[in-house]
């Protein structure tokens, strides 16, 4: 992107032109699966050594792997799949990346242009199907458009609010010669995301924050997308102000979890102190989060007495569900820089007494220890899932550790009990809630960070959704650890059925499970099992020590639920606490309500 006029060079085939464009975009890895329509690209891949292709076992996994790669590196993840079923299998991954704003470029094969619309073999209307599943998509119909579209796809995927982009490539376009040019550095004709915040809005925001008596900073995944420097600046800003800070599920790691100013995660399974601080605050600063329904609870009762500042790179997120007082459109990094500058430049003193009182109140909430649970340590005792995560966290401290998750109870326990002090080390499917995300995502992370410890914290039901990727782990010697909290249930479904459907456990029991130890062994991996609390630390230590993929089958308490919990349709101050807190008189929840919800 040097702004010079691009010179073109005719390449022997469209496939070669694509590979050259990928190299120019800094791509070193592609996750993919071949098929008839993309064979010319596979042929071009075969004849070069700069781009590595990781052969997955299912196209959905290719997209999740690319997401893991992208989220752990800050780069664009690249996927290559064939036409028809290759493309349709990728759709879940694309929507996952769309919901969580993960930059992915997905190249899909297509039948030759003259066959499009003829119901040809392995034809699907890929651009039609993925239009609402992507940030943008393209069908390349002319060789002269090919390279421009590839470069543009990367620009769109990584800039503004990042997201997935599909480029659909008819086979004849891959075969015919095509002109190549480097990115020309010209701004896009119509796509111009706004990244620099309006200084007037920043001034308004700082004026509100300076006068705040009960402030809270609510930071989300947008800060991760803005790069590690944004997380550093968030930490600097929070410490500069002395304000309490909470993170969304997607934002974990943007503020160090071990810091005393951190309140923990907020939302449906957030901490008591984080949710009550949100409910009781008088000024809320939201940076890079989108007032998701899992965060807000009942909208009409959401933080009723606060002035709200919302900084987001996507103008469509502002006033979408929560009406705010100060909207700031911009990239989180630019917003934080501007906020720190304006905070220092504004000599208005903050209300220190009020802040001390506010922290005293927060400490009362904290003293509730809403994440408290009891683990019986007697040998032979059953393992509490929370304890398994805490022991895993302790055993991995001091190592470069990346955590991915599947979706369900184990995901929430991981978010609650594993402490993230750095961004880009936590990969989870937040928006779409895609079971089967964690194993392929871990694969992508491990490819990008071959020497790091990469653990998929899993449930036995979720992980089976993409278990075929054990083959990929074996083929590429990716020593991913799959840490299964095995409770023989789709635990979150079972929890909702217990709390909301009269304990009628309809189709949520994980019947006929495989023997995960033997399953691991059949995929050339190591299988371990912890059945009792006295097995746990040994299994964790062994899992970490082995330089191979491992499935650790951790048999945990089947009846354990995730608490605290804000039931759907309830407010932050109507949180349910766990069995440890029985009889403590929870605000806003009647005894009848406890029984019903």
């Amino acid at each position, binding site marked *: 992107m040097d702004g010079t006029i691009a010179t073109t060079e005719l390449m022997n085939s469209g496939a070669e032109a694509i590979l050259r464009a990928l190299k120019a975009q800094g791509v070193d890895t592609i996750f993919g699966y071949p098929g008839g329509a993309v064979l010319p690209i596979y042929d071009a891949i075969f004849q070069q050594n700069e781009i590595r292709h990781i052969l997955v076992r299912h196209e959905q996994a290719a997209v999740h792997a690319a997401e893991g790669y992208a989220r752990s590196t800050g780069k664009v993840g690249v996927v290559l799949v064939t036409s028809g079923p290759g493309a349709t299998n990728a759709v879940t991954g694309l929507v996952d990346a769309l919901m969580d704003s993960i930059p992915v470029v997905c190249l899909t094969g297509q039948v030759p242009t003259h066959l499009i619309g003829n119901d040809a073999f392995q034809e699907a209307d890929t651009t039609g199907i993925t239009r*609402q599943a992507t*940030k943008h998509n393209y069908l390349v*119909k002319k060789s002269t458009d090919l390279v421009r579209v590839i470069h543009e796809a990367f620009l769109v995927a990584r800039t503004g609010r990042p997201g997935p982009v599909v480029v659909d490539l008819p086979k004849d376009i891959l075969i015919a010669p095509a002109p190549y040019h480097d990115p020309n550095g010209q701004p896009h004709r119509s*796509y111009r995301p706004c990244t620099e915040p309006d200084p007037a809005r920043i001034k308004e925001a700082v004026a509100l924050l300076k006068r705040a008596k009960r402030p809270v900073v609510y930071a989300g995944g947008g800060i991760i997308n803005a790069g590690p420097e944004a997380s550093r600046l968030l930490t600097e800003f929070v410490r500069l102000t002395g304000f309490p800070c909470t993170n969304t599920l997607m934002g974990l790691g943007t503020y160090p979890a071990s810091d005393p100013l951190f309140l923990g995660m907020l939302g449906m399974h957030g901490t008591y102190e984080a949710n009550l601080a949100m409910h009781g605050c008088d000024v809320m600063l939201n940076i890079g989060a989108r007032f998701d329904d899992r965060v807000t609870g009942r909208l009409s009762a959401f933080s009723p007495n606060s002035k709200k500042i919302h900084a987001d790179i996507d*103008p*469509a997120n502002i*006033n979408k569900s929560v009406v705010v007082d100060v909207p700031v459109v911009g990239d989180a990094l630019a917003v934080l820089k501007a906020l720190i500058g304006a905070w220092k430049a504004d000599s208005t003193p903050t209300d220190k007494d009020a802040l001390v009182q506010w922290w005293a109140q927060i400490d009362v909430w904290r003293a509730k220890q809403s994440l408290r649970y009891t683990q019986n340590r007697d040998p032979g005792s059953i393992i509490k899932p929370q304890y398994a995560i805490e022991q895993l966290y302790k055993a991995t401290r001091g190592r470069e550790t990346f955590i991915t998750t599947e979706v369900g109870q184990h995901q929430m326990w991981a978010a609650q009990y594993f402490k993230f002090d750095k961004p880009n080390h936590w990969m989870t499917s937040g928006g779409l809630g895609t079971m089967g995300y964690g194993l392929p995502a871990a694969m992508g992370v491990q490819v990008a960070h071959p020497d790091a410890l990469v653990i998929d914290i899993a449930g036995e039901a979720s992980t089976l959704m993409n278990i075929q990727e054990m083959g990929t782990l074996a083929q590429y010697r990716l020593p991913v650890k799959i840490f299964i909290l095995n409770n023989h249930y789709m635990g979150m479904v079972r929890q909702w059925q217990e709390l909301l459907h009269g304990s009628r456990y309809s189709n949520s029991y994980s019947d006929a499970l495989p023997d995960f130890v033997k399953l691991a062994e059949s995929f050339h991996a190591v299988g371990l099992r912890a059945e009792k609390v006295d097995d746990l630390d040994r299994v964790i230590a062994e899992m970490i020590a082995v330089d191979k993929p491992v499935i650790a089958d951790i048999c945990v308490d089947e009846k354990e639920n995730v608490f605290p919990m804000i039931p759907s349709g309830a407010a932050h101050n109507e949180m349910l606490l766990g069995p440890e807190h029985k009889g403590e008189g929870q605000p806003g929840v009647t005894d009848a309500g406890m029984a019903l919800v």
Partner: protein
Amino acid sequence: MANGNLRSATISVLVENESGVLARVIGLFSGRGYNIDSLTVAPVERDGSKSRITVVTQGTELVIEQIKAQLDRLVPVYKVLDLSEGPHLARELALIKVLGTGEKRAEALRLADAFRARVIDATTESFTFELTGATDKLDAFLDLMRPLGLVEVSRTGVAAIARGVKTIG
């Protein structure tokens, strides 16, 4: 967000004239549950590179702000302009077929004349009128034609533009 008064908005969207762009706009409306009361689209640049979509929609003030923001973030969108925020002109064209004989037929012709509808086709038992105007004028004319033998209508949907020197560009 369901609270608040509904209003009608006439929104013009200048887009790259590429395949799928209309599907993108329509998919946005259907996917997010917004109403489309009327929609028109045609190329507006001499080289055919840009099209103008005019969409008439309804919603609360917040929903309409959402619609505009959601349209604006589509990659091939150059500009989104809410014409209903200021003085603007909105017109649509209808082709209206009325069958009848005798007094009803004569009455249809008299009313058409009053509305400045043009007769663009006629047989001994039918008229086809062409009428241009604001949506409510077309609606009023159609209401009058209904008892007089109205059998078929084809409407273009609304095309709109700001009054005065203001442009979308």
